[in-house]
């Protein structure tokens, strides 16, 4: 047995995300929010539109960095959470590779991207494909804009194969090689060593 994404997604979706008496959602060892996808997309698009050409690269880097740091800390919270232990760990038979598959299943269950690992050379390189992701919503673009998927993918790979948390950051990078927002049939993301 290995981690079956669709089963994990369905099991996790059944764990209702409900706010507590303080209007907060403490879950997976973090505070969760559930906001319209249009909020995150509008923010990124409007920032890029406002940035002069010479600042765009720095801005895009910063957008990826937000997701990367989030992915590293929240990813750790996810894979050490009770929910993960209950739903995913019983299916883990291939060590780090399966934990990574489980993390992507959570990634999918949270509504980030319908994504999965296409190819993996453990500790070296990974290719992710996403047939749907909210960052592709909206108008077509010349620029690949799945900043969140990029950041999270580098972070998840580090959690699986870099030094133990919290000392494993800045060892891998992720590039987006295809984008639905650019007219491709799917998004593709390649994680490699820095």
């Amino acid at each position, binding site marked *: 047995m290995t981690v079956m994404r669709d089963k994990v*997604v*369905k099991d996790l*979706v059944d764990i209702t*995300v409900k*706010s507590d*008496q*303080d*209007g*907060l*959602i403490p879950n*997976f060892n*973090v*505070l*969760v*929010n*559930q*906001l*319209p*996808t*249009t*909020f*995150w997309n*509008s*923010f990124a698009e*409007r*920032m890029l539109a*406002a*940035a*002069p050409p010479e*600042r765009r690269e720095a*801005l895009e880097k*910063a*957008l990826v*960095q*937000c*997701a990367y*740091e*989030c992915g590293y*800390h*929240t990813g750790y*919270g996810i894979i050490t959470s009770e929910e993960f232990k209950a739903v995913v760990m019983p299916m883990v038979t291939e060590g780090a590779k399966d934990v990574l598959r489980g993390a992507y299943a959570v990634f*999918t*269950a*949270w*509504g*980030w991207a*319908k994504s999965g690992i296409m190819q993996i050379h453990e500790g070296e390189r990974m290719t992710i494909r996403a*047939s*749907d992701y*909210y960052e592709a*919503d909206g108008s077509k673009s010349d620029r690949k804009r799945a900043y969140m998927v990029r950041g999270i993918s580098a972070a998840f790979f580090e959690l699986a194969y870099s030094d133990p948390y919290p000392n494993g950051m800045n060892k891998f990078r992720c590039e987006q090689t295809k984008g639905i927002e650019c007219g491709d049939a799917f998004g593709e993301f390649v994680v490699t060593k820095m």
Partner: protein
Amino acid sequence: MTLEIKHTFDEKNFRHYLNGFNMVLHCHHYMSLTTKLAIDFDDIGGTRILSESAEDSVRPLLEDYIRNHKISGDERLRIGAEFYSLMGMGKMEISGNAGAGNVKLQKSHVDSGWLKKWGNHDNPVNYFTRGYIAAVFGASFDKPARSYRVTENEAIVAGANTSSFTVEMVQV
């Protein structure tokens, strides 16, 4: 009043919908880092863009609910406060009329997240909620976007027990 929410999960594309609006789960790290990015890029309008993105993305959801449930009067403001909690953004007390209002946060996702990540900050950072409040007032009193100026006067992140905001109508 308890909100009537229909949560659906699209099993083809694995997306979440609340009353037909596509929603996504994120965490306090992402919100804190996004807020920090907006502050760092404020020379190109970062914090304003963050607030306006919140206002424009939340408002359709509120208006849809108000319309479909025939909500009127003060109840509209309360609906805004309930959605705020539903989204995990905290606990809001809200009052006012078409011209002005006051909002207090007993709890705040943005402030709690920032505190967890970096500790206290000298200035308020809740730009998301400024936009959210503008959306609630705009939807409640049928005013166009950017009709309200929202100012955060006290902030949990700066050491106050609660965050407080004043709301003023401006000419658009």
